């Protein structure tokens, strides 16, 4: 059966899925804490500009920081209350960044405005992109790239596919899964909105076959046209299909997803536009729907808390700016076995030092791993076994690239394709010598920006 | 030197020429005083090798040398140099032949082989051989020369260790020239040196060429050498 299921052609690994830990439980809403820290910049691109002052009163959904330039996104207040201070604090990635401290007054003033009956009026189609932009929607799969930018291809490019990424190929994470299951109609409606903006009718939602309930929910929503319930005006026609994909990491990587569904390969150094595709995450689709149909800014998201060292693994709906400690408390706390904690999935997530960092738009999961799960090990010399070469979905030879990096030969390392690396971690996952391959590639990328062109 | 004013090209050339001239003169002088000893050393060397392969009491005359084919270039592969040996009475008692084979492991191999009992083809005896030049692998192919500088009395009997034993006091007419591994080699075959079959074959080939030359042209050689002896 899996042999007939589509997948990307080259490389890939199949780690322990771990989805069962958190997939079964219901979505839990985390109690909003007294104090939130909202990072000023939560997207890839130009940092946002703070527009509130210390001591100012804010409402739910009020802009705290506005987009600065075309590739940027605004940040909204998740609660109503008072701006305590604007300063630096530690965020995910163990570095300090500007955050806006807000004291929650518990009244949620202004939230009512977003709770009305959602309406998608297709006669206002020209306004959709602006609503998405001002709602601060960014890619929720983890990369956090401003969604509006991805929905506006260069004028000379013909787009014929909108691909929706419901793979959630990262092990353990089920945040997208629960959205697809519980809010399938809204997700599909969000897809339709994006397709309308792009002017394409072919929408493909790729979901790995290890999420049968999600596939079923989406298919039902599509076939019964549930999503059109909120539509008004001149509704364009859509060809929306759910595509089951083989469970294989990194199925959800942008270029791999495009290859799996359309058979097209995005050339090195180019964007999906170049092969007529736009890729958006399912969570993003939902946020787009909220932004267009409810005019509701992005100020909360679903975070998977899971791993062998958390008492109640599951999916938690949390406001942006909620400290991780509040989520941990909601999940019943961590156990003694905790050895490593990661923001994101096990393959691409970032280590956490403590529980003080706030939830951000791009945070898809929090892993609390036991020593056995984290599987940290001393690295030894490369034995040139070639496993990394076989695992690399980008057709690179990680062992060779990193060997050059070890000798600080950045140009050599780049000529071997270091900049094509998507940092999926497949190579390091399979490495019997436990080499820190991804870190070395990142180092190469870092130096590549300093090399004379 | 470098901090002097740049010299003219003419001066530079003149100095080189002068230095070269002085060097040439010096060399000419050295050449003159060493010419004689060098020639003598070479002669002695050749003589010693040739003398080894003919029976004791048989004295090789380098001057009596024949070149076959006649008039050939002495260095060429197919050229054989044939030397007569005379006993105290001036009778021809032995013939030494230098022959060459290029099929060694590292190419060229020069061998001298000595013959006695020159009465007829049937009595013609291969007395002994001596490899004068080779570039075979030390310790492997080079074993073809094992003990060749020692007296045959010390050689023992293992033909696969002392290659010369194969060609010591053999009737030319009975030798088969087939080179085989020592275990498989018959009495009249050549037993190859262990792990050096190619080198062994090359030597045997050179000796075979020499032996057949002597055997086939025995009367002609005897006549030629008799006349040489008379002319002295």
């Amino acid at each position, binding site marked *: 059966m899996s042999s007939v299921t589509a997948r990307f052609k080259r490389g890939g690994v199949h*780690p*322990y899925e771990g989805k069962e830990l958190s997939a079964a439980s219901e979505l839990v809403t985390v109690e909003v804490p007294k104090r939130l820290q909202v990072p000023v910049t939560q997207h890839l691109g130009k940092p946002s500009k703070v527009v509130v002052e210390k001591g100012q009163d804010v409402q739910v959904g009020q802009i705290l920081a506005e987009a600065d330039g075309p590739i940027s996104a605004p940040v909204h207040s998740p609660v109503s209350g008072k701006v305590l201070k604007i300063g630096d604090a530690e965020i995910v990635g*163990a570095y300090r960044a500007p955050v806006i401290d807000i004291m929650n007054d518990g009244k949620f003033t202004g939230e009512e405005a977003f709770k009305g009956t959602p309406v998608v009026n297709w006669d206002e189609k020209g306004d959709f992109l602006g609503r998405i932009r001002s709602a601060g929607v960014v890619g929720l799969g983890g990369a956090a790239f401003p969604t509006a930018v991805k929905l506006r291809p260069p004028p000379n490019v013909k787009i014929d596919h909108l691909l929706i990424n419901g793979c959630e190929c990262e092990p353990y994470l089920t945040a997208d899964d629960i959205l697809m299951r519980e809010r399938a109609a809204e997700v599909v409606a969000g897809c339709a909105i994006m397709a309308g903006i792009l002017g394409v009718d072919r929408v493909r939602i790729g979901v790995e076959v290890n999420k049968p309930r999600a596939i079923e929910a989406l298919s039902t929503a599509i076939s019964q046209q549930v999503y059109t319930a909120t539509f008004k005006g001149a509704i364009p026609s859509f060809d929306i299909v759910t595509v089951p994909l083989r469970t294989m990491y990194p199925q959800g990587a942008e*270029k791999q997803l495009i290859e799996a569904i359309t058979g*097209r*390969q*995005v*050339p*090195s150094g180019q964007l999906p536009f170049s092969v007529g595709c736009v890729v958006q995450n399912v969570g993003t689709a939902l946020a787009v729907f909220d932004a267009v149909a409810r005019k509701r800014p992005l100020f909360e998201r679903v975070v998977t808390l899971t791993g062998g060292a958390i008492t109640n693994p599951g999916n938690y709906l949390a406001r942006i700016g909620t400290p991780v400690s509040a989520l941990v408390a909601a999940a019943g706390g*961590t156990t*003694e076995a*905790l050895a*490593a904690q*990661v923001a*994101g999935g096990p*393959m*691409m997530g970032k*280590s956490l*030092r*403590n529980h003080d960092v706030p939830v951000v738009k791009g945070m898809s999961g929090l*892993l609390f791993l036991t020593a056995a*799960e*984290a*599987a*940290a*090990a001393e690295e*030894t*010399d*490369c*034995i*040139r*076994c*070639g496993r990394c*070469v*076989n695992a690399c*979905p*980008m*057709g*690179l*030879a990680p*062992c*060779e690239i990193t060997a050059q990096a070890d000798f600080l030969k950045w140009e050599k390392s780049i000529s071997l394709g270091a900049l*094509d690396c998507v*940092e999926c*971690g497949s190579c390091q*996952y*399979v*490495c*019997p*010598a*436990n080499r*820190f391959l*991804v*870190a070395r590639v990142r180092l190469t990328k870092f130096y590549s920006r300093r090399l004379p062109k | 030197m470098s901090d002097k004013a740049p010299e003219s090209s003419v001066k530079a050339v003149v100095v080189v020429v002068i230095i070269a001239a002085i060097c040439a003169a010096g060399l000419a002088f050295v050449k003159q005083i060493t010419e004689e000893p060098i020639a003598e050393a070479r002669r002695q060397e050749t003589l010693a090798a040739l003398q080894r392969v003919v029976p004791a009491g048989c004295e090789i005359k380098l001057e009596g040398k024949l070149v076959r084919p006649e008039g050939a270039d002495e260095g060429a592969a197919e050229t054989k140099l044939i030397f007569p040996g005379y006993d105290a009475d001036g009778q021809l008692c032995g013939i030494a032949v230098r022959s060459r084979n290029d099929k060694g492991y590292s190419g060229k191999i020069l061998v001298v082989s000595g013959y006695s009992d020159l009465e007829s083809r049937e009595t013609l005896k291969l007395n002994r051989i001596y490899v004068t030049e080779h570039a075979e692998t030390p*310790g492997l192919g080079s074993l073809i020369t094992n003990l060749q500088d020692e007296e045959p009395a010390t050689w023992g009997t293992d033909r696969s260790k002392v290659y010369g034993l194969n060609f010591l006091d053999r009737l030319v007419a009975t030798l088969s020239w087939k080179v085989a*591994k020592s275990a*498989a080699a018959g009495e009249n075959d050549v037993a190859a040196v*262990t*792990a050096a*079959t190619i080198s062994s074959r090359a030597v045997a080939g050179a000796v075979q060429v020499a032996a057949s030359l002597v055997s086939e042209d025995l009367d002609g050689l005897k006549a030629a050498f008799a006349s040489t002896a008379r002319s002295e």
Partner: protein
Amino acid sequence: MSENRMILQSSPHARDRESVRKVMYTVTLALLPAVIAGTVFFGLRALLVMALSVVACLIFEGIAMKVSGKPVKETLLDGSAVITGLLVAMNLPSGLPLWMVVVGALVAIVLGKHVYGGLGNNPFNPALVARVFLLISFPTAMTAWPVPYGTDGVTAATPLGVLQMEGAAVALQSIPYYNLLIGNVGGCLGETSAIALLLGGIILLVRKVISWEIPVTFIATVLVFTTITWLVAPDKHINPLWHVLSGGVMLGAWFMATDMVTSPVSRKGMLLFGVGCGFFTCIIRLWAGYPEGVSFAILIMNGLVPLIDRYLAPTRFGARQATQGAKA
């Protein structure tokens, strides 16, 4: 939970359960059939050679690591020295003087491996370096092949030796195929039994320690090459099956050429590597001075691996589309 005790690392945070040690011990396991076959045919002396070689390799490995300042305890038992030791022994005649075995182990570990920086950095297969070193240094001892089930000191030529010395007809007549297959012929103590080595190769394939490219192309190239020479001159050259079953092809193709450290990393590179090994093996066997060419062939190809890896890198993602676009 104090944050000091947290594991902080760069992604990924998951690993599969494969480790260098596991890989190495799988290879050791795969060598077991050949070890048993060697012991059956060449007796306890063969077992002694193997044990000595392994122990000597471990000792030299320990010393070399100590000298070069590496952690001895953690990596000594990663299995690589055990494998090198076993493979060195497999490449020796069972009657070899024991001190030469120790020299072989010394050469393999020090000259073949640690002068380059230890496991993973050596360009040449250490066991083959040792074999060639011994073969060149002690030609007589290294070509004295004890007879299977034989008593001490009785030696015979290897099948390929017979072929080179006596010609194809004698070789075909005196050595039946089933003896080549089960290993009841003269030769290095680990290379005679084609069937035991094949079994080991299958273990390696199934456990995914090696991939099919190198052994299959190696053996296929020998088959094709010798088929051609056999068809051209059947009286002079022996048939391809005989070539594949005799000498070191099986040991070389399954265990020596597939050594990860000294073979290419990309699939295309592996294919070329296997073809090259087979090609040079045939060239040496048919036209060079040594009856057997597997070790030299693999060492030659080892030397070419950096070039192969450079020019036969895996096809990068997007390359296909880019060339198509250029054409269109």
